[in-house]
């Protein structure tokens, strides 16, 4: 723990305070402005005809009847859009050897998953567009489909991409050396095979886009429910050949994103083209059924793992193989191999062992693409690692908390590296484990568990430590050739009445980006938070930046705002010094007043400096040009990532007759570095935990033998709801990064990273008396009962 940046009892000390979000009030009044709400003059509506087959050749498309329907303005197929849109390929240079087919908005001759958009209709209303879809006839020749991970890898498997020699997208391996020797010398070796179901983000607001191309000016404006407007400005410009300065992307209020709303979707790209073809605004909102078959999915991994430990329970080595299936293409522009890549690099990350070997194989299949979704790869790496730790602890006869305390990298050993080569500046596993023991009341919980077990009530306690990747540097995407920025920019101004406006490239999806930026700016400048207006989500308003993903809003965005605010403050004090005949260093700003640094006596209102500078510059000394607007960029330059860490605990009850699991309580101790707003951090953690609990118990995209999604509706795909979720106890350890002045890292993925691992361990703990074990998530009643041989 280090001291806060400023004392919390000082005026305008906002960093570290649970300040409510200023922009939340209008959402509570039903005055959010989402893309789904938008109506523009002469706006038309798009709908898409989708492939019923997982893999089929498109023989012919008959759209005459649809075109003839009243109210229909355009029916477009793949060939029509290919004439104006260049193809894209979801590969990156630093993933050596990876392949993926070029993609177009709509396919020309082959559909590669059931639900892929094939023909677009633009009409007066969505209902009329759907009527027209019923009048389109597509003649398909069904092709053999690859619908299962193992089937994709089988010899002579049908090819997802006929031009390729196999269904392999990418392979890589890591080997620190010494693995075989460590296993040979080990007192104990534990092994397990794991299955991780496919799931999907299910933002409550579906994907939504309104593309508005004005043919006369050649200007494209896209209102897009996305996390990353700058990335899409670049992509729409390059793929449609429109100069970047004439492409504006606006991301207003967004109804949830979680990584899902930063990928290129075929329909979104098509809608831009449809607007260009028509010269009118075109709106497309994925309905929920479409979301399930066209939003990215995630996970879908099979992992084999071995762990070697010595007689005292010291972890010596791990050896893992991860196989993951990603759909028919790799997504653009971030690819679909990042998840697997992070799985094999994050396994073992909390622990101090040295010998590690991993192989990753990423394969294609005829399903919708998987890609980055909240806590990319973390839940899999964490579940594998933490389950192996529990298996080893059981073998050695150690309590799971003790086993972890004995093996984590010691808090005083930093800087340190993970077995896979990640470089850690400073983590706090030991402190977090101690806190967890305290907040769980661990020993008495174990006593309670034992007492209840004697009465036939089977409760389980699960623990999972984790490391989270946040705030990636250009090493993450930039070096691979992706035009994805790791820097952010802010333009901050003192307004004529002495208030502050900060336009910043990190974006808001409800996590509180605008709130924390206003806290940081207000504190740095010494003005009241309500006098700071933060603007986000419009490429025409803010500088270019990476925006919000990978928990970079606070770490990179917050530091950008901090540095920009400090520059503006220096400029303000420079003018103040001229007016007051003082040295700038002798002055400070407190609560909107320039004060004497030594006495804290008010000398001049900031508003007065603004008034003089904007309206009476003639009264300033000759040659003075007040610079009351500052633009500033910040890119991380120290460690390639700001790693965070923490530990979670889970207490649950298994009904061994029904296989049902009741979550009783969940615990999180988390270290995200400097905490800017504790309430918002806790919200991120709780929301993240619940997404992890959903994955652990409920969520899975189930497919039939022909590659049809069987549960693609919100009635059939089980998301976590209020009744089944536990209360979540949260505590913090605070280890700021020294790479920035602010010291913040990130917290958005920590909850999701370890929650499912925790549940997996807790269920297995509960099943110990039965000698039953579970190695796959979601942990359904069917899996529990099967493990218990109940049917």
């Amino acid at each position, binding site marked *: 723990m280090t001291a806060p940046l400023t004392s919390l009892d000082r005026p305008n000390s906002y960093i570290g305070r649970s300040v409510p979000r200023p922009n939340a009030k209008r959402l509570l009044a039903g005055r959010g402005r989402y893309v789904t709400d938008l109506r523009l003059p002469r706006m038309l509506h798009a709908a898409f005809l989708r492939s019923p087959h997982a893999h089929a050749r498109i023989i012919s498309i008959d759209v005459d009847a649809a075109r003839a329907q009243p109210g229909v303005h355009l029916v477009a197929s793949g060939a029509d859009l290919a004439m104006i849109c260049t193809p894209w390929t979801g590969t990156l240079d630093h993933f050596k050897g990876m392949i993926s087919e070029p993609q177009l908005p709509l396919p020309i001759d082959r559909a590669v998953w059931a639900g892929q958009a094939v023909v677009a209709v633009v009409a007066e209303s*969505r209902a009329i567009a759907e009527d027209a879809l019923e009048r389109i006839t597509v003649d398909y020749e069904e092709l053999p489909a690859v619908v299962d991970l193992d089937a994709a890898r089988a010899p002579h498997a049908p090819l997802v991409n006929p031009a390729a020699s196999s269904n392999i997208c990418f392979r890589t391996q890591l080997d620190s050396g010494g693995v075989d020797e460590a296993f040979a010398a080990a007192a104990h070796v534990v092994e397990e095979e794991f299955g991780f179901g496919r799931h999907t983000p299910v933002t409550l607001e579906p994907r939504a886009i309104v593309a508005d191309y004005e043919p006369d000016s050649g200007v494209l404006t896209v209102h897009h429910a996305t996390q990353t407007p700058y990335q899409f400005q670049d992509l729409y410009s390059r793929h449609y050949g429109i100069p970047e300065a004439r492409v504006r992307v606006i991301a207003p209020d967004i109804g949830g994103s979680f990584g899902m709303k930063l990928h290129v979707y075929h329909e979104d790209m098509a809608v831009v083209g449809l607007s260009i073809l028509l010269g009118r605004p075109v709106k497309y909102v994925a309905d929920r059924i479409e979301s399930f078959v066209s939003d990215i999915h995630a996970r879908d991994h099979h992992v084999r793992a071995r762990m070697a430990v010595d007689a005292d329970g010291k972890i010596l080595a791990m050896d893992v193989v991860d196989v993951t299936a990603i759909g028919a293409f790799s997504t653009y522009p971030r690819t679909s191999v990042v998840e697997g890549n992070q799985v094999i690099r994050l396994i073992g990350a909390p622990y101090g062992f040295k010998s590690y070997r991993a192989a990753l194989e990423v394969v294609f299949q005829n399903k919708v693409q998987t890609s980055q979704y909240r806590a990319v790869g973390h839940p899999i790496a964490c579940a594998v690692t933490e389950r192996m730790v529990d298996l080893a602890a059981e073998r050695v006869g150690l309590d799971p908390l003790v086993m972890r305390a004995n093996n984590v990298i010691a808090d005083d050993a930093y800087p340190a590296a993970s077995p896979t080569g990640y470089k850690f500046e400073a983590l706090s596993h030991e402190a977090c484990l101690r806190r967890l023991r305290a907040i769980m009341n661990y020993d008495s919980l174990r006593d309670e568990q034992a007492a209840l077990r004697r009465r036939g009530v089977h409760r389980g306690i699960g623990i999972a430590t984790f490391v989270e990747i946040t705030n990636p540097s250009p090493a993450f995407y930039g070096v691979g050739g992706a035009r994805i920025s790791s820097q952010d920019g802010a333009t901050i101004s003192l307004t004529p009445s002495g208030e502050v406006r900060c336009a910043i490239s990190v974006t808001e999806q409800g996590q509180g980006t605008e709130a924390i930026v206003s806290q940081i700016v207000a504190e740095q400048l010494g003005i009241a938070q309500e006098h700071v207006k933060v603007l986000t989500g419009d490429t025409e308003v803010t500088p270019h930046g990476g925006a919000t993903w990978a928990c970079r809003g606070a770490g990179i965005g917050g530091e950008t705002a901090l540095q920009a605010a400090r520059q503006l403050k220096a400029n303000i004090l420079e003018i103040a010094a001229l007016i007051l005949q003082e040295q700038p260093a002798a002055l400070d700003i407190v609560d909107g007043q320039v004060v004497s640094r030594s006495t804290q006596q008010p000398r001049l209102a900031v508003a007065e400096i603004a008034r003089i500078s904007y309206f009476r510059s003639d009264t300033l000394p000759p040659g003075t040009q007040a610079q009351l607007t500052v633009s500033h960029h910040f890119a991380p330059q120290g460690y390639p990532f700001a790693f965070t860490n923490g530990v979670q605990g889970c207490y649950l009850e298994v009904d061994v007759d029904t296989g049902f699991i009741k979550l009783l309580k969940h615990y999180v101790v988390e270290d995200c570095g400097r905490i800017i707003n504790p309430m918002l951090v806790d919200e991120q953690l709780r929301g993240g935990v619940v997404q992890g609990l959903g994955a652990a118990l409920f969520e899975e995209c189930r497919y039939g033998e022909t590659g049809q999604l069987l549960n693609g509706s919100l009635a059939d795909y089980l998301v976590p*709801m209020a009744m089944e979720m536990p209360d979540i106890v949260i505590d913090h350890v605070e280890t700021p990064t020294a790479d920035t002045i602010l010291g913040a890292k990130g917290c958005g993925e920590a909850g999701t990273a370890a929650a499912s691992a925790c549940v997996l361990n807790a269920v297995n703990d509960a099943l110990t008396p039965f000698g039953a074990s579970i190695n796959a998530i979601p942990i359904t009643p069917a899996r529990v009962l099967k493990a218990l041989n109940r*049917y």
Partner: protein
Amino acid sequence: MKARAFSYFRARTIDEALAAHAGAGDEARFIAGGQSLVPALALRLQAPTILIDINHVDELRGIRREGDRLRIGALTRHREMLTEPLIAEFAPLLRAAAPFVAHPAIRNRGTLGGSVALADPASEFPAMVLALDAEIEIAGPSGRRIVKADEFFIDLFETALAPGELLVAIRVPLFRSNQRIAFDELARRRGDYALVGCGMIATFDQHRIADIRIALFSVGNLPMRAISTEAALVGSRLDAERIAAAQTALGQDLAPAESDDVPAAMRMHLARVLLGRVLGRLGEAA
């Protein structure tokens, strides 16, 4: 997800509704609460040319005693099962099942008649109507008729209702002081369709079961009575041994099908576990 176009008619009387349906033929649908029908229309799984709204037909409302039966109008909303004193007193099994039916806002709009007419095999009320030995009052072009619940459910989403007929009311025998009820279900999440559900009403003679009717849902193509199981219980005290015998007998009553996420054997196992628990609760209610 937008419905195909249709025309709309708001009926004020049963006769108006029937006449509208007769005029439109097979392409007409009655809409009551619409909580299942509207999604089916939005998904274009059904595409009637006319929707006949019966929500404003006063004759379909109201709960009242009629002799030894409680007559529950078809338009009675699920929520009223929780709030109406007559239901609590004379049809407590419906009261017990109601909290498990979907969610509060669905219960505010969904109707008993709509639920029974749809005959979703995973729904609570059709099965409880069966357990209660209810009579289903039907109006059609050729007049009124009564069908016993045992004869009402025919197959998957298929009932004794002929096209153009309207379910008017459900009439259940009045609950008596020597009777007990019990209900429970196993659903993954609150308000979801259950993996299996079970409700029962038993008449006791001292501590022996004189008569019992047990109905299960989510176990086949239609709500199912457990007739062999009932037989195994009649005349006996409800002790652990008898419950075990009933659980065994259930194998003769049910033959659940395989589904993609619930194997048949698992559903049978869950049905037995649930039956045992609900019978246990019935015993506790003594």
